[in-house]
């Protein structure tokens, strides 16, 4: 028998396991994806296209839909652990509690990134966004937003799954925390896609980065307290 895996290696094992399970069924991913695409489409018809240019609407729509689609993905995050007490298998193993959190957050990050990878091009398409250097910046903003969403959402998912009203509780807990993410992402991407200098987007990006650092740390530290020991 070799050495028990360290935190990073263990996180990777947990993440791979979650992704293997998700890939096996794909239902959650496809549902969230279709939800995102539908949402993006519906929003287009909810505005007076003569009053507001589609390109101006796009950032707001993208990031709001992103949070709701993300929530769909987060809902299933801990479901597989409770079914046959599989979580005990993880808790009994010689891996740190933090590794369980990081592994699940990582799997959620892949999930959410997958949704963004389809939704962003869809928004570019439907809202006729200028395809320029701003798109590259969008990928960077997406990464920052996804990390924040997943950090907070994974933690609340761990708590919500143990309660009576998990589907209602997760959005109620998470959405207030998603607001700085949506603001930061929407405001900075709006400016960058309009071709404004990066200095204008910088204050918003700073908020996103600060949010990510603070909440990844806080949620990693808080996770062990959500376990029944």
């Amino acid at each position: 028998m070799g050495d028990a895996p360290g935190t990073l290696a263990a996180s990777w094992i947990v993440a791979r396991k979650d992704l293997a399970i998700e890939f096996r069924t794909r239902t959650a991913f496809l549902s969230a994806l279709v939800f995102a695409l539908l949402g993006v489409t519906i929003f287009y018809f909810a505005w007076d296209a003569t009053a507001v240019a589609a390109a101006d609407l796009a950032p707001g729509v993208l990031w709001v839909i992103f949070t709701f689609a993300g929530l769909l993905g987060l809902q299933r995050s801990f479901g597989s652990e409770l079914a046959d007490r599989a979580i005990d298998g993880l808790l009994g193993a010689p891996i740190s509690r933090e590794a369980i959190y990081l592994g699940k957050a990582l799997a959620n990050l892949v999930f959410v990134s997958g949704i963004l990878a389809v939704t962003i091009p869809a928004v570019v398409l439907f809202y006729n966004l200028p395809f320029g250097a701003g798109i590259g910046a969008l990928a960077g903003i997406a990464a920052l937003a996804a990390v924040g969403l997943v950090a907070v959402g994974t933690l609340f998912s761990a708590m919500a799954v143990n309660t009576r009203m998990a589907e209602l509780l997760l959005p109620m807990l998470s959405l207030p925390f998603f607001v700085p993410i949506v603001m930061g992402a929407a405001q900075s991407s709006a400016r960058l896609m309009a071709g404004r200098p990066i200095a204008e987007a910088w204050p918003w990006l700073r908020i996103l980065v600060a949010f990510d650092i603070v909440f990844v740390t806080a949620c990693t530290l808080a996770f062990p307290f959500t376990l029944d020991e």
Partner: protein
Amino acid sequence: MTSASEPLAVARPRRDILLGVAILAVALVYVRALAFTPIEARQGAAQKILYIHATAAFIALYVAFALMAISSILYLWLKDEKLDRVAESAAEVGLAFTTVVLLTGPLWGKTIWGAWWTWDARLTSTLFLWFLIVAYSLLRGAVEDRGRRARYSAVLGILGALLIPFIHMSVYLFRTLHPMPIVLKPERPSLPPEMLRTLLFSFAAFVLVYVALLRARYALATERTMLEEHEGQLSGGR
């Protein structure tokens, strides 16, 4: 019920003197505010809402919320159930105060500037505090196990404490980059000494109300816990 265990000892309901004094203090402050404090020149009599609005806001954000956050951290560290009850009570009374702020804000705003809501940093932070405390209460309601409920609440309390500064920062940034057509509400109006004194009295009276309600709510939480434990012993224990 027919077991031989001792009857549950419950404190005889006594008059809550502190609460009575607190309410009296608030009443006196309002007499002073309405009858003995000068009317503000620009805003008229409606400005007197400030005495409720500003003090409730201050107490909600800096007393109730801080107490929630601190007792949450202490609970996770010390695991003392009493701290969970303090957090629970601080939150619930804080919710009442926060609701007062959110109700008086629009009343004041509409009367003075003709706009119901100004999206300024402090008011919006209070709105999010309201959302947070509602979520906190819902979370507590959804978890049956006492230990788990306390832990989950504490985690939310701490994360919430980290969130509010971000909300404040984001909204502040939003406002400075999007000049609003409405006059910025004076955060700290330079008040003439008469008004300032009334404000301070109001503050003292409201703190008294908060403490009195907190204490009453804490006592309720303690009694509930005792009842739960007593029932637990009657039904399944040794």
